[in-house]
């Protein structure tokens, strides 16, 4: 049993969006509707002339105290034994209560039109059979095969560091515990498992 998490080293992110492409290919996210499980926010920070660009990769924070899980009336949103927040697509009614509850904009609707388009593009290999609310799963299907999430494996600048936060020997544990990495929106008490090293 692990407690999976991620550290984003914002010092190295160049905003190439390869993570978005890899995730979309791996998880068949509806890129045709511009919906992704992971995004890279391209932000301008500061005021002229002291201005710089910051790339902020974001995805589901897989919070310990999950507002989405509390909001979901059907139990479709659940946490597995490794601390990964997942959606049972067959149980999701698409009421959007989780989308309203999520403080990190990590969820989107996989609508009927998206399912139809997915069938058109992927044929029998579709992974989303019914409309539902979709989100990052840390590529749980890859983890079962001892592979890293697609975004982590693809990132050319080693911005995304993934692993077991409870494994004291892991790079992710060392970085998360280093004091350099911070969680977003800590005041909400959600205890995210994704941390950021500021640039």
């Amino acid at each position, binding site marked *: 049993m692990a407690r999976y998490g991620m550290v984003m080293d914002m010092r190295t992110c160049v905003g190439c969006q390869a993570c978005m492409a890899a995730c979309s290919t791996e998880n068949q996210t509806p890129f045709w509707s511009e919906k992704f499980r992971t995004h890279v926010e391209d932000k301008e920070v500061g005021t002229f002339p002291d201005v710089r660009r910051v790339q902020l990769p974001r995805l589901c924070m897989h919070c310990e105290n999950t507002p989405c899980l509390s909001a979901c*009336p059907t139990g479709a949103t659940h946490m597995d034994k490794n601390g990964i927040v997942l959606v049972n697509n067959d149980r999701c009614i698409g009421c959007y209560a989780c989308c309203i509850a999520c403080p990190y904009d990590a969820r989107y609707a996989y609508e009927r039109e998206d399912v139809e388009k997915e069938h058109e593009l992927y044929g029998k290999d579709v992974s989303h059979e019914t409309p539902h609310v979709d989100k990052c799963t840390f590529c749980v299907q890859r983890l079962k095969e001892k592979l890293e999430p697609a975004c982590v494996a693809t990132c050319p600048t080693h911005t995304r560091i993934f692993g077991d936060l409870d494994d004291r020997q892991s790079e992710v544990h060392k970085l998360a515990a280093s004091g350099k990495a911070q969680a977003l929106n800590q005041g909400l008490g959600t205890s995210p498992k994704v941390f950021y090293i500021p640039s």
Partner: protein
Amino acid sequence: MTFVHQEVWHWQIATYLFLGGLGGATFAIGAVLHLFEGCDRKMLSIAVMSSIAFLVVGTVFLLADMLQPLKAIYALTNPRSWIFWGVVFINFYFIAAIAYIIPLLDEWPLFQPIVQKIPAPIIGLLERFNKLVALGGSAAGFLVAIYTGLLISAAPAINFWNTPALPLLFVISGFSTGAAFLLLLSMLSSNPAAPVISAKLEQLDAMLIVTELIILGAYFNFAMFLPTGARASAEFLFHSPVFIVGFFVAGLIVPLAIETWGIFFGGHSQENKPKLPMLLASSLVLLGGYLLRIYVLKAGMFQYPW
């Protein structure tokens, strides 16, 4: 820090929230009037039938907004979710409303054949416990009305919604629309007892509007002094002419002025009291209640940390 308007719940959910509050409060006030004022069965039956219709139509809007409405039964799975409790409250409401209305239906020739098919012991039991069901039903109506506010206040990143003032505002506004709807019915009723009920409802609605104004003042005071999305939402509403003119002026101030005039100068004990101002006030309260929900949903802004 980024403030982004929520694009998740739109007018369909606002309609559900409005009709939920209106239906719940109509039944609750109607049942309380039955308990303490003993108003006539025909008017009560219209009020309860209307409140059931409001809840049914509201639920249809909610289901229409879902991705998988046919699986809605799964919503009774997670008691940590407010939607779970909403489903419980609404079902409790429907059971109470139907049990309450069955004995009243014999007032209507149209429904008499249906009522006659129900075994006499059941009708007798429903008649006997009619006031108890009214009490349970008014509790159910109150719970449905307050649930509409609790549902949207469970949004930690939408500061404007995530406050204890919102359920209070929605429940008082819901009861105000319920009182206005009953006032509308009683003004249209030809029953000799109707003017007395109208006078009570007029006073109740005026008190509810004053309470709503106090809560609104506290709510906006809280929102404007926080450097968060709540202030951005409040500023958005202050710059929305339909909210200011449609909800605040036409939906609260004008009806309050008309009702205050009616209470102090309208001579409501007389049966020949002018009906038009009260009909106008009631209609404006209903319009205002709907606009409040539409604009509170529109004003919801996520406060993202990036």
